[in-house]
């Protein structure tokens, strides 16, 4: 498999004035192969959404490169770049309520991309919108309705139709299910799976629900405070985490299995994710890590491949 997307040492800082900077994403390298689903997990504030948006050019890059099919994408997008790249790369947003314009009809929302990019004429747009509404499990006559007439799950389907109508190759799904009920989550996940199969999509799936990420994605990347701590095959990472943070994250995720929950010890760790403004020196996880050593507080560990398993880990335990 060739790499569709290659991110090299991507960094995104936000200036807050008064010489303060938010280190949202720092030196993150990640490749996504064609037709692969990569899951990006981490706590809120870990920079996973910023990473997804920066990859798509919704934020300017502070430094680093994003290559799409070998082509280096611009540091700062101009309107013409968006116009050219939007047909290849799209995004599905977390909040199905605030990501749809309440004053536009569903037909206008879903058809807007088509109108801007190909502009095949009103009747063709209408046809294609109807087709896509059906593909995501809605009715073509929903076209004339407004977002408030739909439930959360239906709105998320509208968001999916909007992203898919240009038939992109690469889609960033930013927590597409976290605002939905359990029974509806599965509907949306299965829909994404079907579309992935039929269109040969490549997905970057951002989420904080580990068991869902394990289920959805081929590979999993774990992010903490702006940098990657572990990357590997989803099942392997889930059942055999190497980095102490991944271990904690998976141990904290309650499983729907009372006997298992009673038998396993509590893995709750103290403390919270530090502020990305004053990033600690050395390993960023050091102040909460149950296995912390002296070296962790001074030297930043690099993300390096492990010897025996197909895994990259940034931890001094393995260096």
């Amino acid at each position, binding site marked *: 498999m060739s790499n569709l997307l290659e991110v090299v040492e991507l960094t995104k800082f936000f200036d807050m004035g008064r010489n303060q900077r938010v280190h949202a994403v720092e030196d993150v390298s990640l490749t996504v192969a064609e037709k692969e689903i990569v899951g990006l997990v981490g706590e809120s504030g870990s920079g996973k959404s910023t990473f997804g948006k920066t990859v798509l050019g919704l934020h300017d890059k502070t430094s680093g490169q994003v290559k799409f099919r070998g082509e280096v994408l611009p540091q700062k997008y101009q309107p013409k770049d968006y116009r050219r790249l939007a047909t290849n790369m799209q995004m599905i947003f977390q909040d199905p309520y605030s990501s749809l314009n309440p004053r536009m009809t569903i037909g206008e929302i879903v058809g807007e991309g088509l109108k801007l990019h190909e502009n095949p004429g009103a009747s063709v747009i209408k046809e294609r919108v109807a087709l896509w509404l059906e593909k995501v499990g809605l009715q073509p006559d929903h076209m004339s309705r407004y977002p408030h007439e739909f439930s959360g799950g239906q709105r998320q389907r509208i968001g999916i139709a909007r992203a898919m109508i240009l038939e992109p190759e690469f889609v960033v799904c930013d927590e597409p299910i976290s605002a939905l009920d359990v029974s509806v989550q*599965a509907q949306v996940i299965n829909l994404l799976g079907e579309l992935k199969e039929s269109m040969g999509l490549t997905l970057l799936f951002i989420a904080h629900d580990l068991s869902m990420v394990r289920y959805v994605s081929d590979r999993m990347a774990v992010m903490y405070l702006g940098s990657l701590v572990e990357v590997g095959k989803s099942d392997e990472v889930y059942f055999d985490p190497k980095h102490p943070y991944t271990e904690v994250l998976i141990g904290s995720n309650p499983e729907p299995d009372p006997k298992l929950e009673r038998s396993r010890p509590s893995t709750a760790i103290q403390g*919270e994710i530090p502020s990305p403004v004053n990033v600690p020196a050395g390993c960023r996880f050091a102040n909460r890590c149950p296995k912390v050593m002296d070296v962790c507080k001074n030297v930043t560990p690099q993300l390096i491949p492990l010897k025996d398993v197909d895994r990259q880990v940034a931890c001094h335990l393995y260096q």
Partner: protein
Amino acid sequence: MNSAPANSKELLLEVKDLAVEFDTYGGTVQAVRGVNFSVEEGKTLAIVGESGCGKSVTVQSMMGLIPMPPGRITSGSARLKGHEILGRTIVNGKEIRGSEIGMIFQDPMTSLNPTMTIGDQIAEPLQVHRGYSYKKAFAEAIRLLEMSKIPEAAKRARQYPFEFSGGMLQRAMIAMAIACKPSILIADEPTTALDVTIQAQILDLLQDLQKETGMAIILITHDLGVVARMADEVAVMYAGKIVEHGMVDDVFYRSAHPYTLGLKDAMPNNDPSLQHELKPIEGSPPDLFSPPQGCGYTARCPYAMQICSKQQGENTYLTEHHFSRCWLHNSASPNKPDQLYFKEGA
């Protein structure tokens, strides 16, 4: 003060036939349609279900938090230690809300007063319910913050909510809810807005506090993982009714209602060998403006029979404490799907 006899089997709270309606412009919503459950001292009852199934309204009606109008409790009773509490605010000379029953909410950010310090907010119920002086109440607030494992409690008590993170705010909410040593703590989706690592901390804290104080917890959630972790008993709600109720192992390992099964199958499980398939529950919950005549789950149920849409099934007891409200358990039902648990010999 709270010197109820420590009889472990005594029912702390008994809710019978509770029904709640709301008048809206669109008509009357029957949010809760006849709910029965009880809570024992020191135990945790989890109420599970999708949004809109009536979980929150059920507990809010006990706390007197239903705005009336438009809300209306049309029938039922809720007895706390033998005293009726529905529609009342004071029982046995003690206010129910805050004193007998404490409550924490999903969103700690919007549930606290942004213009008062955390310490003052925790001290307030002690001044109101217990008649403490401000000084004494504030000292107690610091102790409660320490109990909720907030570091540097004395300093934190003088800070405002915006200076706290989400997890810390939820701890402060818990400190406030347990200030008057309630016999029941209602936790309405207490960790839904939090990250998993913080969720684990909060769940640990709730369990520790329960061990220390012996309070009962009513936990409202839609996350089956949290239920498995915390609950002794589980009530599964759908369309304003409890469709299955039992001990946590009964409900998870011997699920007897198609909706419970549907919820379990819609979640990714942790089996490494099995390439488990997510089976969504198709469709959406029924409109409670005109609730279906029969079982509310009929339209989405893979095993629905003709009678299901006409008449609500009876509660069938599989063991003494485990029931399912479904026609499949009727002896006349021709269909006994393998996935569901049936009473032996039935």
